[in-house]
């Protein structure tokens, strides 16, 4: 298994080098990405939030930071950071709900630094909330937020399970716009059916790049594309070797 570990290190090291290099080289001419309508609609929804004084609700899921699913939450936090920035002109700060305590604290930090960055300095510590410590209690705690706090746009991005269906149902009843993304496959199926603008799989991690969160986010997508084709080649090559009986 030693070689596997080294291969893993190689993949990570190369990805890191590519990301750093591309983010530096392309910082002036950012790459072009395919159109994902969900992000266009999200921008419009954010515009409405700023305009009509309603509220943006960002739900970051319930990924524990010590699990591999934490990446989806971290991607959600990156998006939150940008959204908080975009809505800084709004009357109300975005309300953020999480199903993991550490994640809730991180969302507080993100909102706080965003409010400082926007020069408003007004930070509402209760804007980032832990609504429950188990998946369904988290969803149950977030539902009243959607119903009661004049939320016109819901962004569900992170690690959700089937409880996501309750959040989209609440959003639907509140006639709110919902952009939804989860790294969990069954949740993606639910969100595909019930969300207005569902993001599928990897698109969750592209959110930062699509809301111009920084050159490193754009570089990330380019690296993902490079790795994608590397995987395709690796699989096809591996199968060829397998059929030839080499491996």
């Amino acid at each position, binding site marked *: 298994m030693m070689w596997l*570990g*080294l291969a*893993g*290190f190689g993949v*990570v090291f190369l*990805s*890191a080098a590519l*990301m*750093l290099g591309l983010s530096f080289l392309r910082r002036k001419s950012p790459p072009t990405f395919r159109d994902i309508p969900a992000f266009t609609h999200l921008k419009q929804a954010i515009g409405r939030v700023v305009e009509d004084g309603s509220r943006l609700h960002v739900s970051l899921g319930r990924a524990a930071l*010590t699990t591999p699913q934490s*990446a989806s939450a*971290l*991607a959600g936090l*990156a998006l939150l*950071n940008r959204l908080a920035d975009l809505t800084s002109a709004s009357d109300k700060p975005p309300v953020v709900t999480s199903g*993991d*305590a*550490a994640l*809730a604290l*991180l*969302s*507080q*930090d*993100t909102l*706080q*630094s965003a409010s400082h960055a926007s020069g408003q300095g007004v930070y509402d*510590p*209760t804007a980032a*909330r*832990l609504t429950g*410590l*188990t998946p*369904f209690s988290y969803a*149950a705690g977030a539902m*009243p937020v959607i119903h*009661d706090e004049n939320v016109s746009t819901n962004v569900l991005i992170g690690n959700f399970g*089937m*409880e996501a*269906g*309750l959040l*989209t*149902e609440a959003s639907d009843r509140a006639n709110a716009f919902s952009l939804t993304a989860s*790294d969990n*496959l069954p949740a*993606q199926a*639910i969100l595909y*059916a*019930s969300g207005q603008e569902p993001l599928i*799989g*990897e698109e*969750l*991690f*592209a959110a*930062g790049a699509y809301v111009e969160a*920084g050159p*490193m986010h754009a570089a*990330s997508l380019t690296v*993902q594309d490079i790795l*994608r084709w590397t*995987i395709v080649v690796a699989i096809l090559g591996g199968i060829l070797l397998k059929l030839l009986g080499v491996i």
Partner: protein
Amino acid sequence: MKLRGILPTALAIASGILVLAGYFFAIDVLGEIRLTLIGWAVIVAAFAVFAGLVNLLMVHVNKIRQREKGMAYSLILIAALIVTFLIGLTGPETPTVSFIFNSFQLPVETSLMALLAVTLAVAGIRLLRRHLNLLSILFLATALVVLLGTAPLPYLGMIPYSDWLRSQIAQVLAAGGARGILLGVALGTLTTGLRILFGADRPYGGDNG
């Protein structure tokens, strides 16, 4: 980045790289360090639970203070939380806590799951109203075929070949799609994690990147 932001970032990068090294290099020391750091992280996460509880309480205490609409619910929540926690301190396995779990938490959670039977049906019905395209139609058609092959029809039994069709769709077509999505998610996870390890994304306070 300000000086006070450097320490957290450096700590995040250092701890991350140490843990990551433990994954790739079969060196006992690295493995030990990795397990120790993750052990610490689990403990810190447990502390975070209590910090989170305070946040949850603060939100609802504020609602009560400001006499917001629905403050009665907040009262109920706070009371339930404190009572359960205090009793739980005697041990979550004690009969009382077990009673609370079985009588309060379990039925509500399973009932919330039961709600999905209706809300998902509504979502399925509304899907084509929202997105009328080939893929949505394919999505619904697949779901219907799989459901048909999941259980026999009343008084009719299994539709011939429906279970075979279901297994082929679920184990061949879906297996391919699921694997592709999982690989894509893994790629996204990789780059997202690396952004943290570069200090490009710093969600832990200070100025975010």
